[in-house]
């Protein structure tokens, strides 16, 4: 033992005592660090491909389709496209990829321990990473939603499209589609973040949820409520028919569905925050 062993030298603490301002600073740092990875990391390529897909598809349709649909059918066409392609496929799988990789990606890369070795509450880590995923997904998929709507309307009739957006229901519909996209990112994001944190192979729960969301129209009204898509569909400005086999249920009003979705998301994140406190880093078994 060295002669000075019993004397601990004071190490000037440069970090302030834990308080709200420190927590916000830490969350900001996590968000900034992860945003960079989400947008410019190797894994972002797949999300970009997903985001470009509906835009490329509609561009092709515009360029190649000789038939111009009637302007009054365009809102329904977009509603169908939004519901089946953007919401259920692009946003769903995009969120799955982005949010599952927030923690699972770190485990695969064996870099999660660096976060765990920082003097930050693990709950803040969940919050920061979730916010980074949310910002990434909202930015990308809001752009997709807006660009796709423009591609449906504008090329077919520019003047009537302008009227639709500035004198008709266009802007209001766009607002609701963007709102639904953001809410989808919020809801699916929380689910996939938790799955990525605690499930070794997150693909399976993701596929189970995908199947559940797709058969939602067949479910009895009570079961419909245990899904994200039910609440999102309730907000769609142009309702679409779900087919002859659909079980009709009363849509949930916006004043219930929006806060409801946010509350469930908060609960899921709270659960993640509680569980991550007990999480161990054992890459060998992951």
């Amino acid at each position, binding site marked *: 033992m*060295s002669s000075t062993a019993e004397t601990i030298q004071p190490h000037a603490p440069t*970090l*302030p005592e834990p308080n709200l301002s420190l927590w916000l600073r830490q969350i900001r740092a996590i968000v900034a660090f992860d945003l960079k990875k989400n947008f410019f990391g190797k894994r972002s390529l797949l999300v970009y491909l997903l985001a470009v897909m509906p835009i490329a598809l509609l561009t092709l349709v515009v360029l190649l389709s000789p038939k111009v649909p009637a302007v009054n059918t365009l809102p329904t066409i977009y509603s169908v496209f939004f519901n089946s392609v953007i919401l259920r496929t692009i946003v769903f799988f995009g969120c799955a990829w982005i949010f599952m990789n927030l923690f699972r990606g770190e485990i695969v890369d064996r870099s999660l321990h660096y976060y765990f*070795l920082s003097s930050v509450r693990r709950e803040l880590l969940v919050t920061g990473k979730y916010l980074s995923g949310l910002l990434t997904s909202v930015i990308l998929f809001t752009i997709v939603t807006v660009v796709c709507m423009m591609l449906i309307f504008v090329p077919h009739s520019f003047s009537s499209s302008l009227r639709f957006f500035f004198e008709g229901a266009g802007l209001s519909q766009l607002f609701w589609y963007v709102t639904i996209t953001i809410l989808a990112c919020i809801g699916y994001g929380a689910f996939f973040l938790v799955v990525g944190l605690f499930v070794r192979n997150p693909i399976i729960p993701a596929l189970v949820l995908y199947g559940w969301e797709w058969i939602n129209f067949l479910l009895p009204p009570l079961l419909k409520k245990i899904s994200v898509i039910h609440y999102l569909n309730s907000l769609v400005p142009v309702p679409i028919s779900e087919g002859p086999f659909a079980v009709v249920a009363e849509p949930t009003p916006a004043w219930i569905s929006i806060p409801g979705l946010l509350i469930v998301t908060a609960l899921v994140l709270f659960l993640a925050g509680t569980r991550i406190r007990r999480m161990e880093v054992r890459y060998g078994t992951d």
Partner: protein
Amino acid sequence: MRYEPANTIIFDNVSKFYGEILGVNRVTLEIRAGITSLVGPNGAGKTTLMNLMCGLLRPTRGTVSVLGIPTDQPQLLFRKLGYCSQFDSFPRGLTGREFIVAFLKISGFTAKQAGELAAKSLARVDLLPAADRKIGAYSKGMRQRVRLAQAIAHDPAVLILDEPLNGLDPMVRAETIALFKQLAVDGLHLIISSHILHEVDMMSDRVVLLNNGYVVAEGGIQGVREEMDVEHPVQVLIRCDRPSILASQIFQSADVIEARVHDDRKGLFVKLRNPDQFYLSLNTVVSEGEIEVESIAPVDDDLSAVYEYLIGAQ
């Protein structure tokens, strides 16, 4: 002697099982400031002990506290603790400086503070010239050093280093050991695991010998060695001109258990029961002038011998 929890790292009857596999079992330790080395073969439980200290693992039984802080409070623990792990992996695409700055900012330092602390720690491990190169382009030794820089960047009071000398060239090894010694003199707790026994021997104040998840021995190397005297008597090498005659003379002493002439016939290995008493009787033999003794040196009072006796034989 019991030390204040605020100044020690305490393992209180700690066990860790990975399912049915034993990590460590019933470990009770008090680690004080200075350099403590964890020594043992692969799978002995060294990394498990270190990960328990950092909260990367949670004990199945018992409790661990570091300077009075429970290990499940990272927001407090890592203000005082730095860990240089064995995982040779990094977040992708970062330079050495960006890597250190990013995690300092996540810990709550401002950008300015983080920049200054990063530069200081990179300079301490002599990596400043390569600080702005991508870690992906670093050599193994440089990656080891950038991990070390990250561990010391926030000026911790406890530094845990899992095989910190791996991959370092001899020059950098010597500098790194000097850095560890300096940090220990500054009052830090350094807990180091290493396979290279002579380096551990050179820098450690205390050792904790582990085998199959159990603490086999702990304390100062000399103290541990002395406790083994009964089972493994001390052995000395006496360099002299007439070893056979010396052997016949010292065998009259009750303190000598065994004597064996060195292969080069210029020395004598002697196993002793009571070294101090033996040295007195040896003085008498030498003073008679018949034998010229050049030197007397213990040959098994170092860590290698302790390791060999306690672990190597099992």
